[in-house]
């Protein structure tokens, strides 16, 4: 869930679009059916009228037919119901139809006039019309037609009603949808904000659940249950790990004390050296337990009492001074390059511990004759520290794995250490809200960059570990 969700991809938007489209289609079909039925009914009525009128006029005595046709035409000055009598040469005899409609079949059935009819009250305007023609026994042709613009008008009214209906439904629907979408979006943003500390490793946090009990609440409830279980399991694992380290320290310390006394008593005896090597081994185990418990201690620490304005450059100079003899003894060049830096808010002791672990690691993995560089410069948002070495580097596929406790990469299996150094760095970085990036130098060697500020989602780094940071092994030179 990175960044702001696309509004048009929301479920609400999708539902609105789907329902809107269905409504438009259904509305159009419904109105179309109504219009079709209405038109068909009206056409049937007109057809019956035309048939009746034809029957009436055609049954007139032939000698009076022209008079009757003229009389019928005279009472219809607007040409709504036109009538025309044509001789067998298609010449008009009576009525208000000037030309015999060429395409009109003379079968006594009502047809739509292909070219319509001219309206006598409207210059040169032709209107749609239905009509029928029949050939009389004397060879004359009687034509009756009716303007059907009224039916078209009714169709237009129905279509306008459809448009009004859709407009009055869709526009408020879209507005309502927009407003409806804001609610879930706001809750999604709240959920997103609530997951930030969880993604950063604080498994004690939970997603907010409202009283609505809707789908989002149900989902949040499921996630919260899952988080609870994850937290319980994590605490169990961590507790077991810590308890083992804690409980074994005491008997090991006693064992060490006995060996120490034995060593004192064997002063000068050949066995004293053997006892001493046992003490060294026990010290190494105790060192690992101390490191393990130190990680837990730092992870459980939620204080800021010792946080103050710290000069990173000063801390780096101390780290450099502390490790310079070690690098020199190992035949390594140990370079220090500090640009002017702004102060950072940090616990100086913990910052020293983190940087000491990074530098100690770099020295440990760099072969004799190699080079370790400790550089500090100002990034766009704060100081950054690069620890660069010419050792074998950390393979890209191991850069996330080295964040795990006790992880030993292929390059580190033959070296000393417990695999907890970077866990300590990780915990310190997390405590400060800083970020660590594990990368390479372009050739061989590793580059570990400590950003003394919190990285944002737009920061482009290789292995961005703002809250979950890798581990290096403690220094054993």
């Amino acid at each position: 869930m990175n960044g702001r969700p696309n509004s048009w991809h929301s479920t609400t938007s999708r539902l609105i679009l789907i329902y809107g489209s269905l409504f438009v289609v259904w509305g159009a079909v419904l109105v179309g059916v109504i219009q079709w039925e209405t038109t068909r009914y009206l056409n049937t009525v007109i057809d019956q009228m035309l048939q009746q009128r034809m029957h009436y006029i055609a049954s007139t005595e032939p000698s009076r037919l022209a008079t009757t046709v003229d009389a019928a035409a005279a009472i219809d000055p607007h040409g709504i119901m036109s009538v025309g009598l044509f001789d067998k040469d298609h010449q008009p005899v009576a009525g208000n139809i000037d030309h015999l409609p060429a395409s009109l079949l003379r079968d006594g059935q009502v047809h739509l006039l292909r070219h319509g009819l001219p309206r006598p009250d409207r210059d040169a305007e032709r209107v749609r019309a239905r009509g029928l023609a029949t050939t009389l026994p004397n060879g004359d042709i009687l034509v009756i037609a009716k303007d059907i613009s009224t039916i078209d008008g009714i169709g237009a009214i129905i279509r306008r009603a459809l448009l009004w209906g859709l407009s009055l439904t869709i526009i408020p629907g879209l507005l309502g949808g927009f407003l409806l979408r804001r609610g879930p979006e706001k809750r999604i943003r709240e959920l997103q904000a609530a997951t930030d500390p969880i993604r950063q490793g604080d498994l004690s946090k939970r997603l907010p659940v409202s009283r609505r009990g809707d789908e989002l609440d149900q989902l949040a409830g499921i996630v919260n249950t899952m988080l609870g279980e994850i937290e319980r399991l994590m605490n169990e694992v961590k507790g077991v790990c810590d308890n083992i380290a804690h409980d074994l320290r005491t008997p090991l310390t006693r064992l060490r004390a006995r060996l120490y006394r034995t060593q004192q008593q064997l002063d000068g005896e050949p066995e004293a050296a053997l006892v001493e090597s046992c003490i060294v081994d026990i010290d190494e185990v105790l060192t690992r337990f101390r490191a393990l418990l130190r990680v837990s201690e730092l992870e459980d620490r939620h204080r800021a009492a010792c946080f103050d304005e710290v000069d990173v450059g000063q801390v780096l100079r101390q780290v450099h001074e502390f490790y310079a003899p070690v690098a020199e003894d190992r035949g390594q060049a140990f370079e220090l390059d500090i640009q002017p830096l702004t102060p950072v808010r940090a616990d100086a002791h913990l910052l020293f511990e983190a940087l000491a672990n990074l530098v100690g690691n770099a020295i440990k993995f760099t072969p004799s004759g190699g080079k370790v560089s400790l550089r500090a410069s100002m990034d766009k948002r704060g100081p950054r520290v690069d620890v660069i070495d010419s050792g074998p580097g950390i393979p890209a596929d191991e850069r996330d794995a080295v964040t795990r406790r006790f992880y030993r990469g292929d390059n580190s299996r033959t070296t000393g250490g417990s695999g907890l150094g970077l866990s300590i760095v990780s915990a310190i970085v997390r405590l400060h809200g800083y970020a660590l990036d594990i990368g390479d130098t372009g050739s061989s060697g590793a580059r570990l960059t400590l950003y003394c500020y919190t990285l944002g989602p737009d920061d482009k780094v290789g292995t961005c570990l703002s809250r979950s940071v890798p581990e290096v092994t403690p220094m054993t030179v």
Partner: protein
Amino acid sequence: MPQVLVIEDDETTAREIVAELSAHGMQADWVANGRDGLAHATQREYDLITLDRMLPGMDGIDVVAELRRAGRDTPVLMISALSDVDERVRGLRAGGDDYLTKPFAPDEMSARAEVLLRRRQPQAVVQRLRVADLELDLVSHVAYRGGQPLTLLPTEYRLLEFLMRNSGQVLTRTMIFETVWGFHFDPGTNVIDVHIARLRRKIDGAGQPALIHTVRGTGYMIAAANEAATVVS
């Protein structure tokens, strides 16, 4: 013989402390709870108190705070299972002089106890420290061996000063790191060894008797050869 009051509720730990202190020539009294410990500490004159942080009856922090309020400046070595820096700071701010976390190596505890006892001894304001023919001028920050000046880096000077101020006293690597560098975590013991080795190369030149001695399994000590022989094999 220095008199030490051991305030510790865990019998096994208390026995360890008493045995180790006795092995270093101290007379130790053991008290198992805070109230009795405070009563003993205020009624008798002790040279040193080892004080457990968590005690029945009265918390170790309260004991040392009460002791200081009563005007007693007896050095207090706080011993606690609480290893967090915050706890260490609380203990020291309440009036403790040093802080050791459990479980501890007895030789580390005795070394810290001896340093505290040494600090308690009235010392004249000195301008020069001397161990055999090694001298350290605290004003000019120059060291001399056999009258010849030695070139020391600032860290080497601080390291030598700490060793010489506690000459004849075993100092653990942790104590050296805490005092000389001022940090409280485990930096990896070998780094301290490297610094000591470099200092040793400057101090103990070829043909000269060694003054910096390694105390096997514990740490380092600076002493004249004849003084060191009784402590270091």
